[in-house]
């Protein structure tokens, strides 16, 4: 299984029936493909609607997700303007957001919107999502393309939000942000704790109940 699929499959387990969910652009969008049976969620799209359908489902150019992909809308969906969209997001009406990350750290900080001097795409709706959604999940590959750690003691890129992350899901495991630090609760099949530690700069607490990563085998 590819890393991205593993991450999306595991992140999907976090979604409960009836949840209102906002999925970030890129990898997080894949999460919708792996919802457990019997779990229906309402996907919110920050460009102004709730009840996002599947990508590619529609050819209506005015029905696109926040990444600009054609996506359709499910029965029971509703459209609104950007102010209402962020009233929902900021106001605590979104249960879960799944976002990508450039870096995250053991304090629950997240950096995912700029690399000074290199890339400044802008924060879009991410800064609102991290402070507004009830649960913030970072779904990202464990290391950067050059092999460097992305889960750090402290982020050095400009932050998207401070102390906002609840859970980190990578292809190596699942990490819960706790008062005491980063807790490794699940580990991918065939991966050792030492491997995870080696690829993680953050201090890790290994759960006494460490289990194999859910929904990936």
């Amino acid at each position, binding site marked *: 299984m590819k890393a991205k699929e593993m991450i999306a499959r595991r992140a999907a387990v976090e979604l409960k029936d*009836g949840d209102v969910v906002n999925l970030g652009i890129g990898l997080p969008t894949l999460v919708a493909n792996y919802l457990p049976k019997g779990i229906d969620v309402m996907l919110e799209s920050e460009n102004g609607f709730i009840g996002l359908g599947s990508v590619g489902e529609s050819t209506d150019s005015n029905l696109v997700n926040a990444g600009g992909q054609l996506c359709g809308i499910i029965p029971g969906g*509703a459209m609104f303007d950007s102010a209402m969209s962020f009233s929902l997001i900021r106001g605590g009406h979104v249960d879960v957001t799944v976002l990508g990350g450039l870096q995250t750290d053991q304090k629950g900080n997240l950096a995912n919107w700029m690399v000074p001097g290199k890339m400044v795409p802008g924060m879009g709706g991410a800064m609102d999502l991290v402070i507004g959604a009830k649960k913030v999940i970072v779904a990202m590959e464990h290391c950067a393309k050059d092999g460097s750690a992305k889960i750090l003691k402290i982020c050095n890129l400009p932050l998207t939000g401070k102390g906002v992350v609840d859970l980190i899901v990578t292809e190596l495991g699942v990490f819960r942000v706790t008062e005491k630090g980063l807790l490794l609760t699940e580990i991918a099949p065939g991966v050792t704790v030492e491997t995870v530690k080696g690829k993680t700069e953050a201090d890790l607490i290994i759960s006494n109940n460490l289990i194999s990563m859910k929904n990936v085998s």
Partner: protein
Amino acid sequence: MKNKQLNIQQASEYFKDGMTVMVGGFLAVGTPERLVHAIVDRGVKDITLITNDTAVPDKGVGQLIVNRQVKKVVASHIGTNPETGKQMIAKELEVELVPQGTLAERIRCGGSGLGGVLTLTGVGTIVEENKRKISVDGKIYLLEKPLHADVALIKARKADTAGNLIYDKAARNFNPIMAMAADVVIVEVDELVEVGEIVPDEVMTAGVLVDKIFCVEGC
């Protein structure tokens, strides 16, 4: 999909002594009358009531005042219900009068995760008492803080089973913003249709904001 429908008995179980409740309506137009009756019937006490006005004694939230179930009311206007003023003067009822536009913004803030808004409304009047004044670019504004409730009771013309709402004309008023600003939102509707029967562009309040639906027709 969750079943959001409930009957009046089930609705009344949400009404507790000491609760803060928002009730939609403007002079009782757009007020969920049956849900208000259910509060009367249950005899709940010490309510903090957030609403535009206290209507008239025998309509809308006016009954809650007459029935002395309210400890504090936050409203923009109480003149049409003499009982409100009487209890206020007798110090049996606390009344916080809020300019109507400020009331709308405070409720909207409560539902939108905002810490407050700055408004010129009320500057130089007794409304500014005990409020922070903040100067922005040479103008003095009042900082008005969010309102949030345990329960919001709202009225719509029509809902689908997902809770998407359509309001009727001037009966819309405070209902859409109250639907954002409470832990539990219960709507009273005249008509309930299947999910998919309301066009997404015509939805005035998204179903995710609505927890429970009480249909007047008993459907």
